[in-house]
């Protein structure tokens, strides 16, 4: 998935514009940096990639943008591009207008006083959120919400007063059969995770080859080599799982493809994070080293839209419902899907 023009263009752009310094600025609350970085993404046309050509988009599918998202992961890209890609496609498909800027996706909860509460990934930096409230969907501005800190530094809980919700248009967006927000988000989260894991593997290998102890690089010790070999197995499997999740030539995966991608990447992320930090030693947990830009993100992505156990149960239910050989269900997921 890394050998196409879009991916190459993304690699080039991100290497220039999404440096570790920029990521740190944005995490530190610098909105100008966030706006500038998003400007580059818009200029490149990435954000409308999944929007149908009839609505002015590129009409691409998951298979075409998986590489782009993987590169975003590899650069710790801090803005909600994946959500914006899906959100814009959903709005366009349903014939609704698309707001400008970044668009986070969230499942809302209607409270007794008519206000709406949601956990919004990237909610501190996104311009607006596409919030699902049962059958109805609303585009709500994030600056108008009462926001509070959530687990990851760029995520928040948001609460919109009833008047704001009532003023926003209530839209109908019908999703294909068995899809929900988790299913839509999972493959793109997985693609980013796979890229981030590739990045920490490279960094950890480089560190192991340079850091000297007992008179030689620590990577020369079998105990360290063993850990890195196992880490690379997980990263390899995660990469393949993310590709399976993004096999569709439309913006939509199947539920099972999403489950494989997100479960395997979340599982692999734990192993990859553990080894990368173990090999880096104390320097790895400093603010100064860039490693945490990736490992903190991987933890956040693991928790977002279903951890490994969430998806294990979904996949298990599909396997129970399937009659016949497990092989036949395995075969079905690697075909193009929707």
């Amino acid at each position, binding site marked *: *998935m890394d050998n196409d023009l879009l991916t190459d263009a993304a690699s080039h752009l991100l290497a220039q514009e999404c440096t570790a310094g920029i990521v740190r600025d944005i995490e530190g609350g610098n909105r100008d940096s966030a706006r500038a970085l998003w400007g580059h993404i818009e200029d490149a046309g990435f954000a409308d990639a999944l929007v149908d050509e009839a609505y002015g988009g590129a009409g691409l599918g998951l298979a075409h943008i998986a590489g782009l998202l993987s590169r975003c992961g590899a650069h710790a890209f801090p803005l909600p591009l994946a959500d914006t890609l899906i959100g814009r496609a959903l709005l366009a498909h349903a014939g609704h207008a698309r707001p400008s800027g970044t668009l986070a996706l969230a499942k809302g909860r209607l409270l007794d006083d008519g206000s709406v509460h949601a956990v919004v990934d990237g909610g501190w930096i996104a311009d607006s959120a596409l919030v699902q409230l049962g059958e109805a969907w609303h585009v709500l501005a994030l600056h108008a919400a009462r926001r509070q800190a959530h687990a990851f530094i760029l995520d928040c809980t948001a609460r919109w007063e009833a008047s704001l919700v009532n003023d926003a248009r209530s839209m109908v967006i019908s999703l294909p059969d068995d899809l929900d927000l988790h299913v839509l988000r999972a493959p793109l989260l997985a693609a980013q995770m796979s890229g981030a894991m590739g990045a920490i593997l490279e960094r950890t290998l480089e560190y192991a080859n340079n850091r000297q102890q007992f008179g030689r690089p620590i990577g020369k010790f079998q105990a360290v080599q063993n850990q890195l070999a196992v880490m690379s197995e997980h990263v*390899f499997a995660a990469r393949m799982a993310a590709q399976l999740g993004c096999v569709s030539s439309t913006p939509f995966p199947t539920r099972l493809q999403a489950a494989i991608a997100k*479960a*395997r990447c979340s599982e692999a992320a734990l192993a990859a994070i553990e080894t990368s930090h173990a090999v880096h030693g104390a320097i790895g947990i400093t603010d100064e080293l860039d490693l945490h830009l990736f490992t903190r993100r991987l933890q956040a992505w693991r928790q977002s839209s279903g951890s490994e156990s969430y998806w294990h149960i979904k996949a*298990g239910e599909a396997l129970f419902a399937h009659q016949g050989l497990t092989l036949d269900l395995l075969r079905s997921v690697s075909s193009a899907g929707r």
Partner: protein
Amino acid sequence: MTILDSINLFAIPSEAEEIRPEIRKFLIEELAGVPENMRARSWGGYDAEFSRKVADKGWIGIALPKEYGGGGRSAFTRYILLEEFLNFGAPVGAHWIADRQSAPLLLKYGTEEQKRLHIPAICRGESFFCIGMSEPEAGSDLAGIKTRAVGNDSGYLLNGRKIWTTNAHRCQYMIALVRTSGTSSDRHKGLSQIIVDLSLPGITIRPIKDLSGDSHFCEVFFDNVQLSHNALIGQEGEGWQQVTAELSLERSGPERLFSSIILLDQWLGWVRTSQNLPASSALLAGKLFTRLAPLRSMSIAIQSKLTRGESPAVEAALVKELGTTLEQYIPSAIADDIFSREDPHVPGELLLTLQYLTEISPAFSLRGGTREILRGIIARGLGLR
């Protein structure tokens, strides 16, 4: 960029898939009534009569050239064939090694005479092969082998001893890695591959009983065994390079992920009919499935590299390590699922399969190279050695 970046999702060509229904029909008929605990032996199971039926269908050497008796089909057709054999638990052990390794090796390095003599017989299911690598003092440290073939007027005089040779007592031929010059201290130099007719005088084969009571591996003694000149495969002294290339074929195939699949399917069959299904069972089923799916894709992606003539040794080591880890996890996790219940009421047939795989599964990460050896290969591929 690491070596991992070169492997991408690859779809099995649809024309290769055409063979699947025919294979499946054959397996359903031939294996009717064979209990799962026997099927679980799969490529470790030996049934010469079954192998000859497979040969009659043209399915041994299916991807080998027609001029040597093969089927002339694609490597992916063969991949599908193996996948079906493994998922139905067909007793394919008799011809497995010859089909997977020996015939392709002879095709690549053999003389015309060797090819004509052996490959058609392999494809007919008449000639079974074993691989003589390990010795009592040379297991993971394979370069330390001491079995020696010394050149003489008639060819080579073979002396020494091999161990853990699968099915040596039921094969016609062994392809052995032996020392033809130098000593163990020369390591990878001076090793050669030779083909040994196991009916020759001076050969003693002693099966070794395993912990389940099966006898599949053997000790093989060579006492002044006279081999002809044409016993040599490829170049004298090039044995190490030839063997290493062969291992990519051995390490990434579907037999590195599906060794416990019969148990998984049997357990699923039981779970699907049980009342009050615990959520932990769904979680386990999903965990196994979401690990299997990317592994299968990895194995297929490596097959596509092999098809293009590449030798993805490191990638194959990665698949074998992950695949055998999963194969070993399946029986232990299923046992935990079953016996976590207050009152399991498990069918005896399921327990027999579970028992067999529980006992034999340590072998999965030994055969074809131990974890430690594979991790060494991976570490080298990652630039750490």
